[in-house]
C-alpha cells in the first residue's frame, strides 16, 4: 500500500473517532457551539480526504452527515438524537469502508449503494421503507439470501452476489429461456429453482406458463450481473452479500478445521476402552483450537458439549457440536451479528510515535553501531591472544548492557498508550446497550489518560464490553424499580482507570441491584460447580469468585445483549492471558464493582530459571517467595501427595519433573531443592533439580494451537537458543 493511502487511513480513523465522540457529547449538550464546530471540522476534513483519494461514495456519505452539522450550526435544524444516530451510522459505515480499503486498497463494490442508503437515511425515513428492488443492500440480508447461502455452504464463502429472478408468467411465449439465462451468469457458483406457485395436477399443466423462482450465487460483482440480466422480463433482485456473512467462515482457519475434523475421527473410532479420555481430550483440543483463533464463544460451546458427553456417557453431544461447527457456517454469523464486538478488531496496526522518541532510537542505533565496531577490535585482540582481552571484553560488555537497557526502555515507552484509545469507545457502547435494554444509564469515565502497554490497551475492549453489558443488563435496574428502591432514576456506571506501582487498575462500578451471594450458591449447586458442603466453607470473596467459573450464569433468560453463555469466565481468561487478575465485590441493593488489575507492561518479565529433569523452566520471580534446600526429614507423604514443613508452615510439595512428565535427575537422600512460590493466596513448594539463574526476558504468550495449554504462560528464547517454557504458578498451585 502506498504511503499516501496509509496516511489517509490513519487520519480518517482518527477523524471518525473524534467525530463520534464529539457527536455523543453533543447529544448531551446540543448547544455547545465549540463542540459543534469541532465535529463539523472533523467531518469536513474526512470528506476532503476521501475526495482527494477519489473514494467518491465515501465523500458523498460524509457530505450528508456534514450537512446535518451545518444545519445545526446555522440553527436551521437542531441536532436531534435521531440525527446524531444517523451521523453515527454514517461514521460506522466509513470505518467499515476503511477496513476494506486497508485490505484491498479500494472501496467495496457495494460502496455506492451503501452510500445511497446513508444519504437516504438523512433525507428522511421515507426512502427506507421502499428500497430499490434492483440493488437493495440492507444490513440484514433477506431470508432468501441466507437460505441460499445455507443451501450452498460449500461455495458460499466465495459468493459476492445473490440473484433472485421471478420471470414473468408469459415470458416463455415470448421466446425467453430464463434457466439458460441464469446458467450463463458470469462466475456462477450455485443455481436453484423452484415452483413459484404449486404445480397442481399434471393434466392441467401449461409448460409455457412460467412458474419458476430462479436463484443464483455468483462470484461476480453486482454491476456485472445487473448488466447481464438487463432486459429480462420479470422481477429481479441482485443483492451484494455483506462481508459479515463470511466472517465466521473465514475466521476458522484451515488448520483449526483440520484439528476439528481429526477430533471427529477420534470420536468416531470403534474402541471399547478409554471413552472418557477420548471425549475429554477431543473436547479440549477442539476448544483450544477454536480459542486459538479467537472464537471464545464457540470454544466454550464445545467445552460444554464435551461435559455433556461425559455426563451422558455418550459421544453424541460433542460429535454434534463439532459437526455443527463445520457445517452450519453462514447462518451462525447472521443469527448473532455482534457488531459491537466485531468493532474491536480495529486494533491499530499503525500508530503515531512522538518524533523525539524516534530520534532517541536513532541515537541509540548509532551508539550500538559504535559498540559493534569496537567488537571487531576485540575479535582481533582475541586472535592475537592479547592478555588484556578479558578486561576489554568486560568493559565493552558493560557498555553494551547499558545501551540495550536504554533501548528496551525506549521501545517500551513507545508502546505505551493512553487508555483513552479504548475507553472513548464506551459512551457509544453504553448508549446503544442502554437503548436496546431500555435502561437509563449515565456513564462516568475517569482516568482516561492513564497509560498502559499497547497490547493491554488493545485487548481491554472485549472484557470491558462484557463487564459493561453485565452491569447494564443484570446490574442496573429499570427506572421504575430504581424509584421504588428509593434510588436516583438514572443508573450510574463508572469506569475508572488508574496506575498503581507496576499495575494498571480498571474498575467497572455500577450502582445497580448488586449480586446476592445466596443466588450464586444456588446457581453453583444447580450447575454442579460446587457441593453444599464446599459452599458452606467458602468466604464471601470466594463465593463471588465463583462468578468467574466457566459455565456460570445466574440468568436463565437469554437477552440480545448478554447471557449468551459467554460470561465472566471469558473476562477472567482474557485478563489472565496477559498476566492480570480480576476480582469482584458486590452489595445487594447498592451495586457491583469489578476490578481488573493489569500489568503496566507485558514485555519484560523477571524470571528465575530452574532445571527439572534436565529441562529448563522459567518461574516468574514475582511469584517466588524463597528458594532453599530442605532435608529429607522435612518431607512427608500425606496420602498420595507430598508436603514439606518449612518455617513451621506446611506446604504442598510439587515435584516439577513429575508433574511435567520428565525424568528427574537428582541424587536421592540428602534432601531437596525447593522453590517456594505463592499466587492468588495459595502457597506451595516446587521441588526442582537445580536453580539456575535470574533473567529479565520478554515472555511471548503462547500462540496458535498452543493457546490455553494448562500450566504454561508463555515462552522465551534463552541465550543459547533453547526455548524456555515459563510456568503458570497460579495454575500449578490450584
Amino acid at each position, binding site marked *: 500500500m502506498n504511503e499516501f493511502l496509509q496516511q489517509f487511513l490513519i487520519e480518517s480513523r482518527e477523524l471518525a473517532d473524534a467525530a463520534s465522540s464529539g457527536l455523543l457529547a453533543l447529544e448531551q449538550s446540543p448547544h455547545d457551539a465549540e463542540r459543534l464546530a469541532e465535529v463539523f471540522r472533523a467531518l469536513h476534513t474526512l470528506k476532503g480526504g476521501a475526495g482527494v483519494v477519489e473514494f467518491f461514495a465515501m465523500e458523498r456519505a460524509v457530505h450528508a452527515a456534514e450537512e446535518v452539522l451545518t444545519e445545526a450550526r446555522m440553527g436551521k435544524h437542531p441536532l436531534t438524537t435521531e440525527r446524531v444516530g444517523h451521523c453515527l451510522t454514517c461514521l460506522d459505515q466509513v470505518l467499515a469502508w476503511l477496513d476494506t480499503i486497508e485490505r484491498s486498497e479500494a472501496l467495496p463494490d457495494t460502496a455506492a449503494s451503501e452510500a445511497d442508503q446513508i444519504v437516504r437515511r438523512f433525507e428522511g425515513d421515507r426512502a427506507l421503507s421502499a428500497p430499490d428492488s434492483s440493488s437493495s443492500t440492507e444490513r440484514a440480508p433477506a431470508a432468501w439470501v441466507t437460505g441460499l447461502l445455507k443451501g450452498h455452504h460449500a461455495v458460499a464463502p466465495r459468493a459476492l452476489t445473490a440473484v433472485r429472478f421471478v420471470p414473468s408468467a408469459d415470458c416463455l411465449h415470448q421466446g425467453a429461456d430464463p434457466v439458460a439465462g441464469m446458467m450463463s451468469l458470469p462466475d*456462477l457458483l450455485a*443455481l436453484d*429453482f423452484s415452483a413459484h406457485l404449486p404445480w397442481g395436477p*399434471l393434466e392441467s399443466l401449461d409448460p*409455457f406458463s412460467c412458474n419458476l423462482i430462479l436463484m443464483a450465487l455468483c462470484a461476480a460483482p453486482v454491476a456485472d450481473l445487473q448488466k447481464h440480466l438487463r432486459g429480462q422480463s420479470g422481477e429481479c433482485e441482485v443483492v451484494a452479500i455483506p462481508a459479515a456473512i463470511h466472517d465466521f467462515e473465514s475466521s476458522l482457519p484451515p488448520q483449526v478445521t483440520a484439528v476439528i475434523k481429526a477430533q471427529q475421527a477420534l470420536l468416531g473410532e470403534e474402541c471399547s476402552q478409554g471413552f472418557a479420555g477420548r471425549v475429554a481430550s477431543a473436547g479440549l483440543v477442539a476448544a483450544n483450537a477454536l480459542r486459538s483463533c479467537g472464537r471464545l464463544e464457540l470454544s466454550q460451546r464445545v467445552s460444554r458439549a464435551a461435559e455433556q458427553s461425559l455426563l451422558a456417557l455418550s459421544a453424541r453431544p460433542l460429535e454434534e457440536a463439532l459437526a455443527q461447527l463445520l457445517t452450519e457456517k453462514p447462518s451462525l454469523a447472521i443469527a448473532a451479528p455482534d457488531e459491537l464486538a466485531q468493532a474491536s478488531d480495529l486494533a491499530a496496526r499503525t500508530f503515531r510515535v512522538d518524533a523525539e522518541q524516534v530520534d532517541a532510537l536513532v541515537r541509540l542505533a548509532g551508539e550500538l553501531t559504535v559498540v559493534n565496531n569496537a567488537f571487531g577490535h576485540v575479535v582481533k585482540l582475541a586472535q592475537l591472544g592479547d592478555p588484556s582481552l578479558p578486561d576489554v571484553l568486560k568493559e565493552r560488555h558493560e557498555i553494551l548492557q547499558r545501551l540495550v537497557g536504554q533501548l528496551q526502555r525506549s521501545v517500551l515507552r513507545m508502546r505505551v498508550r493512553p487508555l483513552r484509545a479504548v475507553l472513548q469507545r464506551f459512551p457509544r457502547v453504553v448508549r446503544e446497550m442502554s437503548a436496546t435494554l431500555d435502561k437509563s444509564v449515565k456513564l462516568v469515565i475517569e482516568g482516561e489518560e492513564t497509560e498502559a502497554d499497547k497490547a493491554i490497551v488493545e485487548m481491554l475492549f472485549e472484557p470491558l464490553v462484557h463487564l459493561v453489558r453485565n452491569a447494564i443488563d443484570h446490574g442496573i435496574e429499570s427506572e421504575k424499580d430504581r424509584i421504588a428502591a428509593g434510588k436516583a432514576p438514572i443508573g450510574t456506571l463508572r469506569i475508572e482507570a488508574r496506575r498503581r506501582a507496576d499495575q494498571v487498575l480498571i474498575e467497572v462500578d455500577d450502582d445497580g441491584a448488586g449480586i446476592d451471594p445466596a443466588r450464586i450458591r444456588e446457581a453453583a449447586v444447580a450447575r454442579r460447580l460446587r457441593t453444599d458442603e464446599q459452599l458452606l466453607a467458602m468466604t464471601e470473596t470466594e463465593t463471588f469468585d465463583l462468578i468467574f467459573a466457566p459455565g456460570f450464569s445466574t440468568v436463565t433468560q437469554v437477552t440480545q445483549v448478554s447471557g449468551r453463555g459467554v460470561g465472566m469466565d471469558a473476562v477472567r481468561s482474557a485478563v489472565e492471558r496477559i498476566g492480570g487478575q480480576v476480582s469482584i465485590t458486590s452489595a445487594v441493593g447498592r451495586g457491583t464493582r469489578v476490578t481488573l488489575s493489569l500489568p503496566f507492561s507485558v514485555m519484560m518479565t523477571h524470571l528465575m530459571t530452574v532445571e527439572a529433569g534436565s529441562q529448563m523452566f522459567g518461574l516468574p520471580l514475582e511469584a517466588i517467595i524463597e528458594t532453599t534446600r530442605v532435608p529429607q526429614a522435612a518431607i512427608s507423604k500425606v496420602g498420595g501427595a507430598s508436603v514439606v514443613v518449612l518455617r513451621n508452615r506446611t506446604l504442598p510439595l510439587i515435584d516439577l519433573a513429575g508433574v511435567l512428565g520428565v525424568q528427574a535427575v537428582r541424587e536421592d537422600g540428602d534432601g531437596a531443592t525447593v522453590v517456594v512460590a505463592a499466587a492468588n493466596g495459595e502457597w506451595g513448594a516446587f521441588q526442582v533439580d537445580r536453580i539456575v539463574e535470574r533473567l529479565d526476558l520478554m515472555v511471548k504468550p503462547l500462540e496458535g494451537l498452543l493457546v490455553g495449554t494448562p500450566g504454561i504462560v508463555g515462552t522465551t528464547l534463552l541465550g543459547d537458543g533453547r526455548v524456555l517454557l515459563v510456568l503458570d504458578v497460579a495454575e500449578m498451585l490450584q
Partner: protein
Amino acid sequence: MTVQSAANGDIKLIGACPGEDAEPLLQHLLAAPGATVDWRDCHGVHTAVIQVLIAARPTLLGPPADARLRNWVEPVIARTPR
C-alpha cells in the same frame, strides 16, 4: 423430434430439447405415469421442458451429456421432492 419413446417404455431426450418438446414430453408422461426419462444423450433443455420435469418429477436416467445440465440442472431436479 428429440423426445422419443423407447421400446422398454422409457422416454428419451436426445440432443438439444427446444421449448416445443415440452408438450410431447408432457403427453408421454401423462400416458405412462411411471415412465423413466433417459436424458443421457441430452445436450440442453429449454425452461419449458424443465418445468415439465419438475412438475411431473419422473425417474431420471442420467447423467446428461452436457456439463451445464449436469452441474446446474440435474442437482436441482434431484432435490425437488416428488
